[in-house]
């Protein structure tokens, strides 16, 4: 039940386009004592059905710029392979700390960004 609630709350955040993983992964690690890699794996798989639904809606409305997407995906595939193998091979405690540093940067960006 707690897990459904955690998913629900992070889903609301990601539905608003703010980034649910930044809430979901720490919640799983800090409150449910799940290994850093496993929490990240959960976030990856949770994203898939939500993203497929969102993508379908955006595609029908013509909001996707494929001219940019193609090359970014190409570079991204190489990055995703390297990043995922790195993640699954480093110590969970180190990965948690690196993740924390990454979160700190995202938080600072959200706080200090102007515009909109």
């Amino acid at each position: 039940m707690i897990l459904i609630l955690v998913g629900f709350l992070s889903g609301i955040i990601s539905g608003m386009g703010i980034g649910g993983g930044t809430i979901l992964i720490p919640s799983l690690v800090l409150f449910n004592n799940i290994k850093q890699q496993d929490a990240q794996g959960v976030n990856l798989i949770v994203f898939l059905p939500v993203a497929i639904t969102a993508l379908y809606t955006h595609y029908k409305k013509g909001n996707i710029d494929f001219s940019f997407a193609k090359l970014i995906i190409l570079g991204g595939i190489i990055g995703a392979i390297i990043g995922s193998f790195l993640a699954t091979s480093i110590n969970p405690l180190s990965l948690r700390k690196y993740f924390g540093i990454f979160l700190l940067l995202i938080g600072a960006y959200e706080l200090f960004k102007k515009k909109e």
Partner: protein
Amino acid sequence: MDKKKLKLLFIGLVAGLVNGLFGSGGGTIVVPALVFLMGVNDYKAHATAISIILPLSIISTIIYFTNDSIPFNIAIPVTLGGIIGSFLGAKLLNKIPINILRKIFGSVIIYTAIRMIWK
């Protein structure tokens, strides 16, 4: 190869690396990169980012899965809640002041980050 193409490949490389390494955050890289480096408008950048992060996340999911880092007993209830939550979030999007929410979100994230580093 021209500069623009190299830029796009590089944005992808960084986004894929981050998304694979942290199992999240690809969109956090792609959206501002499209807006500030390529001049795409904010709304289109969000939509395009999903089309980019989805295939990258599928690749990462496969690699995590082969390394036993996808605990399905946890993933299934979280996904269930996540699907309901994201529908609600998308509906709430135009009804609440998103700027204030972003500031609250930023503060929560910084607090969480510190706990993740010094747990």
